């Protein structure tokens, strides 16, 4: 396999016991681009009609959709359809990677300028 295309349809629906008059939502439904995967097209269909909708990225670079609904509703349906291209990824051999103890020690704070890689990784090292 070198690359493969998938068409994905993902439907989420919520039912409420009483009218929801107004609401805010954040949707994380679009995969972020990577060397091994591309999202060729995507579409998100929402009922009821949205009052406001914008595409943004979060602080980690993930795409997100911001929604505001202002029509009273008892049901919310979000249908996400996309076409994704996935490339083959070379297998990772555990023996050839750096041992975790060493990685940990590399990240230890020494009061010196960290490398670019260390800095980039820092934000992902904590919950």
């Amino acid at each position, binding site marked *: 396999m070198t690359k493969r295309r998938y068409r994905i349809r993902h439907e989420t629906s919520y039912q409420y016991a009483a009218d929801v*008059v107004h609401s805010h939502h954040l949707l994380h439904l679009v995969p972020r681009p990577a060397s091994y995967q591309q999202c060729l097209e995507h579409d998100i269909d929402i009922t009821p009609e949205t009052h406001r909708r914008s595409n943004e990225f979060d602080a980690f670079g993930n795409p997100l959709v911001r929604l505001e609904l202002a029509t009273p509703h008892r049901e919310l349906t979000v249908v996400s359809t996309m076409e994704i291209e996935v490339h083959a990824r070379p297998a990772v051999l555990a023996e050839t990677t750096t041992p975790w103890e060493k990685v940990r020690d590399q990240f230890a*704070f020494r009061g010196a300028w960290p490398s670019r890689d260390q800095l980039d990784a820092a934000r992902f090292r904590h919950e």
Partner: protein
Amino acid sequence: MRAVLEPTDLRRYDELTDASGGMRSHWRPLIERLRANDSPDAVRRSLELTRRLVVENGVTYNVYADPQGADRPWALDPLPFVLPAAEWQTIEAGVAQRARLLNALLADLYGPQRLLAEGHLPAELPFGHPNYLWPCHDLRPVDGRWLHVYAADLARAPDGRWWLLADRTQAPSGAGYALENREILEQVHAEAIPDMSVRRVRGFFNSLRERLLWHGHEADAGGEAPLAVILTPGPYNETYFEHAYLARQLGMPLVEGSDLTVRGDTVYLKTLGGLRRVHSILRRLDDDYCDPLELRGDSALGVPGLIGALRAGRVMVSNAPGTGVLESAAWLGFLPPIAERLIGEKLVLPEVATWWLGEKPALDYVLSNLDRLVIKPTYPNQRFEPMFGRDYEGKERDALIERIRNRPYAYVAQEHVRLSQAPVWRSAASSELASRALTLRVYAVATPDGVRVMPGGLARVAHDGAAEVVSAQRGGGAKDVWVLAEGVHEEPPSTGTPGRLQAQRHDYIPSRLVENLYWLGRYTVRAENTARLVLRTLAARSDARVFPHARQVCRDLGAVAPDGDVFDALHGREAIGITADVKHLAWCASQVRNRLSARYWRGVVGLQRQLQEAAASRGSSREVFERLLLSLAALTGFSEEDMMHDEGWRVMRLGRRIERMQFIASILVRQLGSASATRPEAVEWLLDVCDSTPIYRARYIGAPRLSQLLNLLLYDDGHPMALAFLRRSIDRDLGDLALSLNGERERGVPDVPLVASDAAEQLDAGGALGRAARAGLADELAALAQRCGELSNRLSHRYFALIESDAHALAT
């Protein structure tokens, strides 16, 4: 008063006396003044006055209304803590500098993160901290500031210098207590304060208020008065007293998350009159609870969309969410070089020696000096008390070391600070002074002209003489802090205050408040109805002609459970009857605590106590219900006499009237459908239940008749229990409400069903004809009761949930 000097502990600084045992000069004026009144009586009077003022404030502001005032974190010592002018200058400069530094640090952490890139800081400090909020990264607060209000915890070391113990950057608490303490001591020491030129603290709160209203001023040059609110987690928060107190002192609405709503990028307060734009928020909510949309999804306390509004620069939040990341001892060791890098200054206040154990050399040093160090958590979610290394021996010590070695970055070691000893007034029984360990919290607010430090603060003292740690959990006390002015001190004038800023409207009534007032009205009348129904039924227990009917009505109307008994009305299940009514009443009252008078609140507390005592004893139920009725009537009286007759009050009265109308209509329906409907005993019972016997007696003579009762309860527009009266007064209140809110008048309830005069006699008749006449009227009254319920729903949609104004706000 004698200053009995306890054996001086040379390892500690004594605030009152110097090394040679003489009194320090800044204490002398106060102590001499107190000595002049040296009588046990004067001491006792001061203590009692202090205690009484504390209790009165507790009753005024606190939800739980503990008569002892024991729900507040600290007892207030009538003896203040005195600081001379020169010493204060250093503290003031140091705290102001730190406020500037920490704001710059936050701007870097949530912006370019240069300090991390340059190796000034380990990434573990910000990124491992639960209060570092990634959604706030790259956010630009509308006024460019992250930190508006800051507090520093200070202690005096044995060398006499003040040291920094900890920074409070999230939503510093206690400033309200500092103001309250001062106001109380101003009464206790009415002469000493001006004579000694003690600096005033109120100016700090004016600055804070101006700061909060400033954004509104900048943002809306045209017209609209800026609105600032205080956002509280609610009455169950342990510092709610302070929130309520500050709200009143600053003249700002005290709101909860559900009072606010974000539409587009704008924050609004839901008020009785519709949505009102909010320009700034003083939050007392923790960082991660502020916005369930982007932060903690499980937060029911926050405002969905608040971060978005902040990002759009449409609202100012003090302090910005995420500022709590600086609340960790781990920062201390890193700050001196950061101060040079960010603001080019050396720190004025020394910090307690601190080691973050994520660095190997620090870890090695600390493990070999454990005996003289205290181990603290790096992150607030680790939740353990500071551990004194010297307390750990043998296996315990090995376990502690193991624990640290597993996650060294999660621990901090600090040198143990020997707190200075300050004089406290021990008790009414003795005029002697005792010594207690003391820490000092000092507050700063950022104004457009720079950081302003409150010349005073909150001093806290340990619970006993041996204690080395000052902790609210272990008791202890608070002290007012008197900063002495040098000569005549002119307080800096408040920063440019356009007249308009003073015009902050604080009469906005949040919808949630109104809703609770409405239900407070309803539950008061519901409890009254239940109590009277049960009482009259108990009174009829020996009359077989009426009792079975009366008992059934009690069940039908929910005064007791469907299978319950009136004799057990006080011991029944919690969810039903008088117990439930009073519980709901008390809950609603607690939600609107700020708007009730002190005696109203005492009445609510008394009502709950009456019920608890009654449930515990097996005394006469009738007497209990008689007393409950009196207490309930008193509440209604207080609401008429003590409350401001504004829209909120009007809605409360609407609640009472709608509840009553529904009850009268419903009980008449039950009566009309009963086989004993026309029996004089049953009619008499019903008159009693509807509290109408005296009026009836004044009108009619002879045995009571159903048709006459109906005439009275349906049409008499001078009788407050009659449907016609209730309908008319509901109409009038709806009209007045619409008028004062400039809105359309809400539709009331339909007319009371008319009974033709010839039909009236049939109501008393037996046989099929009589039954049919009664059934016909019962149907109409049932419909009327239903209309009352519908009106209640419409009011709730329109004024409490703001469904109509929602649509309106979005359309414009």
